[in-house]
């Protein structure tokens, strides 16, 4: 018995000692400095596997990272100017509000040798919007009426009504052009064929996807020859792999790991203001939430500055619902929100008895949602509200929020097209209650503004409409914007040239070894 006791004590002591040793991370290993670093495999780690590799069939960020390198769209968002530029297209014109005539670049071939032409564009878009395909992002082309091939390199798209963000929609990842020959012959979800700088090599499910450089790429052959997209479920493991040189590139760095990453000296961290927004929303179908004074009380009780200071620099503070990097943003909205004033909140709570009935705060148990939920819960409690947190995993959370089974919750929107209409329509237009409008918000005046912002072609006019809609949401405290996202990446110091978009997408085509 005595012997056992000592063993146990020894065990505890060793645990405590292990704890005290703290940061004893191994020294960063540099690559051996061989002459041609570009020939080496360049590995990106993600916490989950891709779902599918066809722009028509997939709708998730992990798959999009890969399809962005294999396929290309007609237009693309220039990350530096935030303007849309032609990619596979050469130019476009609008003979009238409902007609888009797009000239295509000539001489481009798909990886399987099929020529890229107007037929391929028509084939892809028709397939994407065909109800029989049931494509998850068919809505991108919902305004399209008919697509005509005018000649080999000219395509004419007619819309049912004037559609303002059409070029933004055509630059969406899911509007990339696929090879018609390949699509008829094989399943592009597993075996993708596009015009992009990288060709598909292999996919080991749950492990990795390999790509190789397209030696016949029309816009300059990429310097990196082999790309690997590896699945590493645990982000802290992925960071350790970055430290030891097994992985060269990571994105979406979690706020709680930033200090650790910044202490590593073999990587460069890049941060860029992004289009994503994280906000507190009310369930507008609940009677209590329809009381503007209640929403005001909640908004004044939430100290957003204190929260953003907890993000280790990975969040931008602004009251605007349309973020600073999104089309339709106006500086006047940045400070237009209900200011933090806990005394005012307390007074409102006391006057109206808001503290009597508990508030159900629904939250997803990932990323910064839990952080927001716990901090906001404490802040609301201080103002006199009674708040109960219910956390659940992401998929269940989305369903629960869609069904409107909550009082308040936190939502996020990454906004791939960086257009304000694409934020307001899916999330707050009454058409989408029961699907993507999880706030259950329904306001005819607001609806009209959003529709107008979509059907107006003149971009300056659209900006003014979006500004009005934005201010309307802020004044009525429809949501309480918590922060706007910052896109983060960590890249091995031996490489340079990753192109990062405010939408969170990135592009490895121009990466070179040092």
């Amino acid at each position, binding site marked *: *018995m*005595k012997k*056992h*006791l000592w063993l*146990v004590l020894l065990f*505890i002591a060793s*645990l*405590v000692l292990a*704890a005290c040793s*703290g*940061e004893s991370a191994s020294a960063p290993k540099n690559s051996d400095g061989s002459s041609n670093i570009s020939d080496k495999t360049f590995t990106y780690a993600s916490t989950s596997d891709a779902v599918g590799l066809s722009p028509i069939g997939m709708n998730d960020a992990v798959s999009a990272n890969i399809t962005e390198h294999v396929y290309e769209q007609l237009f693309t968002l220039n990350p530096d100017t935030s303007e849309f530029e032609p990619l596979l297209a050469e130019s476009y014109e609008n003979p009238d509000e409902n007609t888009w005539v797009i000239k295509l670049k000539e001489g481009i071939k798909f990886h399987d040798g099929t020529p890229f032409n107007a037929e391929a564009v028509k084939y892809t878009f028709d397939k994407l919007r065909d109800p029989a395909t049931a494509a998850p992002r068919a809505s991108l082309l919902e305004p399209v009426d008919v697509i005509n091939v005018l000649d080999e390199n000219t395509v004419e798209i007619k819309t049912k009504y004037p559609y303002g963000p059409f070029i933004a929609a055509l630059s969406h990842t899911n509007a990339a052009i696929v090879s018609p020959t390949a699509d008829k012959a094989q399943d592009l979800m597993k075996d993708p064929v596009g015009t992009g700088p990288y060709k598909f090599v292999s996919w080991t499910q749950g492990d990795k996807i390999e790509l190789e450089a397209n030696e016949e790429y029309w816009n300059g052959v990429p310097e990196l020859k082999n790309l690997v997209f590896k699945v590493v479920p645990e982000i*802290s493991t992925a960071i350790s792999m970055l430290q030891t040189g097994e992985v060269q590139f990571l994105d979406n760095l*979690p706020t*709680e*790991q930033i*200090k*650790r990453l910044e202490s590593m000296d073999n990587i460069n961290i890049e941060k860029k203001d992004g289009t994503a927004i994280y906000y507190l929303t009310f369930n507008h179908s609940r009677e209590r939430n329809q009381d503007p004074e209640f929403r005001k009380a909640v908004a004044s009780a939430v100290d957003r500055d*204190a*929260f953003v*200071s*907890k993000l280790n620099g990975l969040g931008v503070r602004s009251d605007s619902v349309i973020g600073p990097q999104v089309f339709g943003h106006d500086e006047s909205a940045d400070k237009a929100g209900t200011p933090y004033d806990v005394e005012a909140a307390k007074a409102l709570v006391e006057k109206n008895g808001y503290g009597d009935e508990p508030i159900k705060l629904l939250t997803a*148990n990932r990323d910064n949602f*839990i*952080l927001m*939920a*716990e*901090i906001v*819960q*404490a802040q609301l409690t201080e103002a006199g509200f009674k708040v*109960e*947190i*219910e*956390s*659940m*995993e992401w998929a269940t959370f989305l369903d629960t929020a869609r069904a409107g089974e909550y009082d308040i919750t936190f939502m996020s929107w990454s906004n791939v097209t960086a257009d304000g209409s694409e934020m307001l329509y899916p999330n707050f237009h009454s058409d989408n209650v029961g699907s993507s409008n999880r706030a259950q918000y329904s306001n005819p005046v607001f609806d009209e503004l959003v529709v107008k912002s979509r059907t107006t072609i003149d971009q300056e006019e659209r900006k003014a409409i979006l500004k009005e809609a934005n201010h309307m949401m802020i004044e009525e405290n429809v949501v309480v914007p918590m922060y706007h996202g910052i896109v983060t990446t960590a890249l091995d110091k031996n490489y340079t040239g990753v192109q990062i978009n405010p939408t969170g997408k990135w592009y490895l085509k121009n990466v070179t070894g040092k």
Partner: protein
Amino acid sequence: MTNAVLTDVKIVKKKKEKVYINTIKRVLKNKLAVVGIIIILLQVIMAVFAPVIATHNPSTQNLVASELPVFSEGHWLGTDNYGRDVWSRIVHGARISLIVGFTAVTLGLIGGITLGLLGGYYKKLDGIIMRIVDLLFSFPGILLAMLIIAILGTSLVNVAIAISIWSIPSCARIVRGSVLSIKEKEYIMALKSLGASDLRIMIRHILPNAMAPIIVFATMRMGTAILSTASLSYLGLGAQPPTPEWGAMISQGQDYMWTSPHLTIVPGIAIMLVVFAFNVVGDGLRDALDPNMDIQ
């Protein structure tokens, strides 16, 4: 005549007292068990006097003083990522894990003893009850608990219910085994021939004689129940934030393992010590209650 009966009763009472004292003496001879008892007592004291012992309110945040290391001024176990005092959360967590563990074990015992007594005593019921028990056994414990929580929803009450259901089959088997052997004893036969009711025989005569393995089981089970509560909360199925539950604390702390390791290590050690304590006390009790063993 009456005098003789009285002295008999006294002798029985004295004998009973002697059995208890002997058991306690034997347990106290086991040094490891003594360590366990001390840890359990400390936890009970922490749980009962939590508001007095805790230096801060366990859910009061201080975002400016977050992630303070251990032995910081005013926070000897540091603070978590929300600036909440870790020591105060551990103290209040002791209360939660004891209450949930105790509730779960009590409910499990009630279910298990009832099924075990009925199954062991009535041959006709034995088949059905034991097949139900077998069915419950065929699920891995934590999966069964997760299934029950998926049906009932996430909360600490449901965790207690889930763990108690998971304790029922093993308890029922242990009780049934003892009942089967006890019911063949002569004094039970004698009671039956005197016309005692089944219920009386089961509750007054069989159950007290089957108590030794039940006590050992209950003690060991406390450790398992506390560990399971922590596991389920770690998985996000138990305590909801900001409840200072130990498992939930570990789960929150693991994101900060590189910068503030104490957020996982402190609650980890708390869980480890308590589970260890219940296990060694259970071991000690088993040795002490075993009539065939004679510990020096």
